[in-house]
């Protein structure tokens, strides 16, 4: 049984700040976690929580103040290990004087793919990320979304065992996000390990086997998505149509918000079916019934508020 795909032990990163750079800001505090091979692992947290910092530490773009990490059983300083990993940076930017095909070919060379295989893979990847027709256009003409796709392509071009994606959905329209989701699922089917960071909860919920939640540089929990955000449901929202000659509302719609003939009503889970029956009897037409879920922001604000007493400890000064 192979070991974890990623092992992180007490990883810490301090940044010097202040006028003479004597103060330090701790952007990552003693992170310890593991990513198992073959799973899709989500790294969740609000902006500035330390997700990107962790990933950059893994990729050796920055160096840790303390702690260690191993990828695929090898220390992160092992350059050879990079043959088996793919990385999509946050808000990627590539050489704008190259075309997508040229960029992918350039990166493929580092993986020592022979010329024929390179050509094949590059064409394959461009098709996979939906850039077939734009392959010969210089990257300087690409939109943010297109750059994101190129970034994804270069991350999986060489068939790596582990794929690390930093905010892969950012800058993409809904179609693009769907495509990225599809690719991640495909990677999982191929038995690859995927680590990606995001602050969009629905993405994590649909894709991840496990997630880790980071707030303020600290790990606040690792587990299945449902477990983490297993907060009590806030109820159900019903959208319905009701028209009557006299402007009298039926009792059931007493507390509803109205715009024209549309009514928006919130009820708790327990009284959902009773309410629906009442509406049906009153002659209202049900349009939608949606579960109200907490947003990740609300959840995190909840977390932060709960940890406010410890917030002061996040900043370590004078060390």
């Amino acid at each position, binding site marked *: 049984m192979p070991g974890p795909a990623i092992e992180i032990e007490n990883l810490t990163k301090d940044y010097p700040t202040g006028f003479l750079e004597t103060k330090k800001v701790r952007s990552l505090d003693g992170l310890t976690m593991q990513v198992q091979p073959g799973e899709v692992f989500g790294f969740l947290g609000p902006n500035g929580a330390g997700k990107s910092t962790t990933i950059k530490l893994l990729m050796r773009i920055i*160096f840790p103040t303390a702690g260690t990490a191993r990828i695929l059983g090898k220390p992160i300083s092992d350059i050879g290990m990079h043959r088996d990993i793919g*990385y999509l*940076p946050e*808000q990627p930017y*590539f050489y704008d*004087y190259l075309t997508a095909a040229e960029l992918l070919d350039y990166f493929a060379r580092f993986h020592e793919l022979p010329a024929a295989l390179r050509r094949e893979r590059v064409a394959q990847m461009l098709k996979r990320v939906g850039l077939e027709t734009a392959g010969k256009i210089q990257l300087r003409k690409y939109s943010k979304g297109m750059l994101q796709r190129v970034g994804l392509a270069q991350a999986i071009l060489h068939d790596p065992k582990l794929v690390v994606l930093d905010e892969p959905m950012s800058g993409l329209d809904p179609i693009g996000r769907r495509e990225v989701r599809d690719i991640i699922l495909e990677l999982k089917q191929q038995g690859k390990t995927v680590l990606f960071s995001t602050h969009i909860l629905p993405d994590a919920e649909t894709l991840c086997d496990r997630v880790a939640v980071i707030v303020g540089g600290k790990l606040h929990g690792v587990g299945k998505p449902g477990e983490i955000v297993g907060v009590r449901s806030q109820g159900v929202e019903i959208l319905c149509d009701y028209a009557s000659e006299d402007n009298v509302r039926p009792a059931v719609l007493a507390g509803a918000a109205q715009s024209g003939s549309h009514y928006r009503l919130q009820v708790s889970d327990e009284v959902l079916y009773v309410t629906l029956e009442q509406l049906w009897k009153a002659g209202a037409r049900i349009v939608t019934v949606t579960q109200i879920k907490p947003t990740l922001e609300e959840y995190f604000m909840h977390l932060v508020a709960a940890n406010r007493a410890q917030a002061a400890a996040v900043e370590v000064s004078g060390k």
Partner: protein
Amino acid sequence: MKCIGIVAWNTFREAVRDRVLYNLVLFAFLMMAAAIFVGQISIGIEGTVIVSLGLTAISVIGLLIAVFLGVGLVSKEMDKRTLYAILAKPVSRWQFLLGKFGGLALTLAVNTLAMGAALILVLLYVKHSLQASDAGVLVAVYFIWLKLALVVALALLFSCFTSPLLAILFTAGLYVAGLFVEDMRTVHSAQMSEVFQSFLRGVSYLLPNFQNFDVMGEVAHGRGVPFALALQNTAYAALYCAMVIFAAIVIFSRRNLK
């Protein structure tokens, strides 16, 4: 090792696509104008004027490219973060740096060679025939390239730890200082203390001596350049570049990017 070549080739491609080589057009015009008007400046020294003008232009244009592109080699990659994806590839930071250096050195080699060829052509046109001593012009052009390679190495080093503007200033400053190394060595002044004078003398050996590569006077007047000097200068440039790039590698390998 191959990775160095891959990065170098891409760096060369970037320079070409950035239209850096268009400076050759400017140089060509300059040389043509010189060829046409040199007769009116002075009879009898057409060759001298063409050679000194040509070598000056090759050197100045080359220096501008070496300093500005040299500083941008690493700073642009760090600024624009184009470097990030590459760091995740199986290529180490030192290989990347060497590749960048190699790419610009190659660009400058192509550039200088083209200009040298144009200079020889114009010289032929103006003098109507070439002598063996005119081969000295090519040696002078080669020395200019050696000098440019050293400037690129310095620019690379400074851009690894200071802002682009400071890197440009430091590199330019070292270049100018390197032209007065011999004066530092022979300074005799009543106002300066003995200690300071010997300090200056010591420093003069450590600074990059760009005067070594200056053979314009000899070549412009048709005198040859000793082969031994060519060998020594090549060794000097190679050794100094190696030291500077080594320092750059050490600094860059430890540097936290944005």
